[in-house]
């Protein structure tokens, strides 16, 4: 669990501020190859900020981000995606005026291996069959659950080595949440490395190998999913920030 030296991905003392607000107060975590790590915490704890900073949308005021043996802290988003970190953002953020097919195509815009892209498109359609039917439809007209599947597929089209997921169950009907998490479990079996932000703690811990709990910008707890599932302090961390 502490083999952070060989970790594929690592945050070291990451700090992010928005004006006077200190959103992240120096967090460190790591993700090993093939691992699914959950990042839990109450509203406003800094989960999305962490993911956005990894992807280069926010810049840290201190600390470092390491991926595949190099510091990517100052890299632009394009380069980060090309190195193999894809991000399925909170609220999905699809291109609503573009079709499902066009959204998928843009998901692969960082690649040039035409055959690989075609094969991955097929793979997405077998992982999320509804997307095949919806191919020519505008993304903005899909249901919440369909949109979430498209958001995941769009991120996967980048052929990432590390997948960042921000609340894949948000605004999705319960039945589809189950379907989406089954798809994520399938990806995990195939060896995909993931950093998962999820409000639904039970669901996240069932999928994840390990988890970190964020509390107002600091890591309050971390441990294996099994440990954390039976730890009352996890639930307290959620309540704690809400007080």
């Amino acid at each position: 669990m502490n083999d952070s030296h060989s970790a594929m991905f690592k945050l070291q003392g990451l700090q992010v501020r928005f004006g006077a607000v200190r959103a992240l107060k120096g967090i460190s975590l790591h993700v090993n190859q093939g691992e699914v790590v959950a990042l839990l915490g109450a509203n406003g704890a800094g989960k999305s900020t962490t993911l956005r900073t990894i992807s280069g949308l926010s810049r840290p005021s201190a600390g470092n981000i390491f991926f595949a043996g190099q510091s990517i802290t100052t890299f632009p988003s394009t380069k980060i995606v090309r190195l193999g970190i894809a991000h399925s953002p909170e609220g999905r953020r699809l291109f609503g005026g573009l079709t499902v097919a066009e959204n998928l195509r843009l998901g692969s815009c960082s690649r040039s291996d035409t055959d690989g892209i075609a094969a991955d498109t097929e793979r997405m359609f077998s992982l999320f069959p509804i997307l095949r039917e919806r191919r020519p439809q505008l993304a903005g007209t899909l249901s919440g659950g369909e949109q979430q599947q498209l958001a995941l597929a769009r991120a996967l089209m980048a052929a990432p080595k590390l997948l960042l997921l921000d609340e894949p169950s948000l605004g999705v009907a319960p039945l589809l949440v189950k379907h989406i998490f089954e798809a994520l479990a399938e990806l995990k079996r195939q060896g995909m490395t993931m950093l998962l932000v999820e409000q639904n703690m039970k669901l996240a811990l069932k999928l994840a190998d390990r988890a970190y709990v964020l509390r107002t910008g600091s890591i309050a707890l971390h441990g294996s999913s099994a440990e954390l599932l039976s730890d009352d302090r996890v639930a307290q961390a959620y309540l704690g920030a809400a007080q």
Partner: protein
Amino acid sequence: MSDLVYILQQMINAVSLGSLYALVAVGLSIVFGVLKLTNFAHGDVMMVGAFTTVLLIGVGMPFIPALFCGILGAALAGLLIERIAYRPVRNAPDVTRLLTSLAVTYILENFGILVFSSSPRNFPLPDALNESWQFMGGAITFTNINLLTLALTFASLIGLGWFITKTTLGLGMRAASEDMSAAQLVGLDVNRLIVVAFIVASGFAGLAGILWAAQAGVIQPQMGFTPLLKAFVAAIIGGFGSIAGALLGGFVLGALEIFIVAFLPDAITPYRDAIVFSLLIAFLLFRPGGILKPNREIKL
């Protein structure tokens, strides 16, 4: 019978004027899409295109190559404007960016005055393009430059349609217009997309400027002002920021202006622009998203 011919002639005029508005409005919409900025300098880029063409014709270049060089000149001007003026203030407050765009307008216009003086000059259109076609005993008339305008407008718009629906760069440009951070997250290089957007938009402005000046027969440094204003109205009527909306708005506005003059009583004709701008205000108040995008907020 002659009524029908008259209507036909007015329809030709409407499409001809509308296509010019559409060309300008499309560029305005493309830049607005990626930067959320009303690019007032767009009209001056038209001027750059027209002046480049006139200068090159002046040194002996034939019209058609000079036209393409004018388009390139305008595209280059757009590229430089983005790089020098807009990029440094990209994340600044809206007011700052708006003022920057006005400043660029003044700088370009004064540069135009410095180089060409502020008095109008003739546009040296080749005689062949001034030749007119007459049908039905002169009841229907159009010139070769009218035809060329239509041909170039439709060819360039079809090219644009292909670009924004079939190429990754074009799709990326539309994606960035919808959601800049999401575009970054899929790995699109937004700097590059913005540069491409400026080149395409400015190329369109250049083409529009050249055709506008060729039809009017004169050029002057402030020539971009009126078309810019009209294109702005067209873009809002159609749906600001949307390329399809700009096209639609351009043709609607062209038709409206022609038909006001052609079919309404002479007493109303002088109020053509007043009617057009009242329509603009009505749209801003009651349907700010334009015909295509009801209820979407627009920002200057």
